[in-house]
């Protein structure tokens, strides 16, 4: 009886285990071994070398990629969460307008990445883009601006598009969190003499701290994994000025067939992502622990 129960239990979890092995563990193992293998022209030439990592360290583009990735992930996350917090706080106000906006704001989310990227690429185009033209016609700029062609600007323009796309859900989650702050605490703060800013700072923010950290880490993971948006809009250009981890890995593997170097970068990327997730789990567990005695 006990024996057959155990057999049944293993049989039931087998599909999941098989799927994880096939689609998670397998490829990860593959990439990890590949990163330690010398690859020339798409052909494997000997295992057990750190040559790929050394090549990366010597690659001047890789330094630029790291800097761009930092702007992409850190700048993107910070802006996404701060803008999301502002928008969420506004949406949390009860009125007919915010009721509609709460539904409308999700529109950027329902568009596929490719459509978003193409639409923004055209709007930001140096000659025919509507944004540059509008700026020129209104006299704010001398000529049209090549938003995606300027190496100093391109990374930040990408971040703006990223915010447009990722912020709405952050705003909605924070809106829900803000609306669940107990009214009586806010009223007590009013009686204690707190103005609107002080109520937000001393009552609302501490009450939504948990959602805020969760949303920060989640957007960090989303943004690290985001590939289509930068790849379609700039392809890493001009002159690698918008090359980030995700696009550089793609370029190295599928355009230059440098499997080994690409795998080495993937491993670095994986370690980065894993540390973000670990941080999330750590914060999560700690806040659960402190809530525990409630």
């Amino acid at each position, binding site marked *: 009886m006990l024996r057959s129960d155990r057999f049944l239990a293993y049989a039931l979890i087998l599909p999941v285990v098989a799927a994880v092995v096939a689609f998670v563990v397998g490829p990860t193992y593959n990439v990890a071994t590949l990163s330690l293998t010398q690859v020339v022209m798409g052909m494997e030439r000997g295992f057990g070398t750190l040559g790929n990592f050394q090549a990366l360290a010597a690659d001047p583009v890789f330094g630029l990629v790291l800097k761009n990735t930092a702007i992409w992930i850190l700048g993107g996350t910070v802006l996404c969460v701060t803008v999301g917090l502002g928008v969420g706080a506004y949406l949390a106000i009860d009125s007919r307008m915010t009721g509609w906006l709460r539904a409308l704001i999700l529109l950027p989310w329902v568009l596929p990445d490719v459509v978003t990227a193409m639409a923004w690429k055209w709007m930001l185009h140096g000659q025919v883009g509507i944004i540059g033209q509008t700026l020129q016609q209104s006299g704010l700029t001398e000529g049209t601006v090549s938003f995606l062609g300027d190496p100093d600007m391109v990374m930040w323009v990408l971040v703006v598009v990223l915010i447009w796309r990722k912020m709405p859900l952050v705003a909605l989650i924070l809106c829900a969190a803000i609306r669940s702050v107990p009214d009586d605490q806010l009223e007590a703060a009013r*009686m*204690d003499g707190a103005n609107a800013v002080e109520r937000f700072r001393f009552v609302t923010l501490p009450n939504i701290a948990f959602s805020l950290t969760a949303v920060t880490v989640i957007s960090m993971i989303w943004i690290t994994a985001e590939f289509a948006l930068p790849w379609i809009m700039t392809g890493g250009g001009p002159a690698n000025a918008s090359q980030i981890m995700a696009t550089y890995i793609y370029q190295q593997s599928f355009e230059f067939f440098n499997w080994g170097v690409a795998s080495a970068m993937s491993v670095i990327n994986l370690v980065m992502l894993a540390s973000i997730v670990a941080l999330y789990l750590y914060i999560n567990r700690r806040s659960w622990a402190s809530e525990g005695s409630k």
Partner: protein
Amino acid sequence: MGSVALRNIRKSYGAVEVLHGIDLDIKEGEFTVLVGPSGCGKSTLLRSIAGLETISGGDIAIDDTVINTLVPKERDIAMVFQNYALYPHMSVAKNMGFSLRLAKEPQAEIDRKVRAAAEILDLTALLDRYPRQLSGGQRQRVAMGRAIVRDPKVFLFDEPLSNLDAKLRVQMRSEIKELHQRLKTTTIYVTHDQIEAMTMADKIVVMRGGHVEQIGSPLELYDSPASIFVAGFIGSPAMNFVPARATGGRLVTEAGAPLGEAPVALSEGQSVTVGFRPEDIRLSDTGIPARLALIEPTGAETQLTLRTGETSIIMTTRDRVTHVPGDTVHIAITPGKLHCFDPETEQALRGGRQ
């Protein structure tokens, strides 16, 4: 300092008016209890005084200064909420000192005031704890401490004891009353519990449906209720009401059983609703015949449920009862303890005897 005057307070939510012109004067240092059933407007009135609700009409004055348009922080009022409303991320000391911190008082001064308040409320050992580490009664005391440190002109309490268990409620009731006797701050206290109102108040305001039914001291309300509603609301077990008519200056039940001398002048044959309290009834040899339906001893006294025709009458007695349910007994009402109400308007009938 600390007198409160309300003049013709009205409050509407859209087309629905929930306060229909409330007038109330509260003297400095007085403990006033607003009492009434759910939805009578007592909490709305309290929140209007606090400034958490804007009133639609009338004037609220503290010390003869109209404060209608002032925001809560400028009114010099502190409020204790039903759910305590403590800030969960602040320690007890921080919770209590929050208003002073917002007012930019020096830290040393904040510490001194918080310590003093904690001393009064017996919270000194708990100052570094967080609200989630406190029991319900302790949280309630912290909420009061938060009000005390501000040394406001008026304390407002919004059903502060309704989340506590029965034993703690009685204990906190006396603590709040002691606190008031010590600080002598004008207090307005909202409750739906008439026992809280009776035991704590200098002045009770009975509210119903957005109107004031009666204002008076606890014993005034008990001895001469202005309406059937007040008579039934104040006192436990509630007052008995029976339909009756007047004959020759005396009141008899509709079946003709004698109730006693009419307390007010009535015309011959006039129909009235007569009220009398359970403790003003005694068993006797003659009087109103009734069937004994239920005997409930509580130790000190015994509560009897009697049936006369359609109506049930509750009586309490300190004597030991030897009857058994089903017995027919006779009851008499202590002379001078009858209350007469108009059956139509439900208002008390006043006026001297003819």
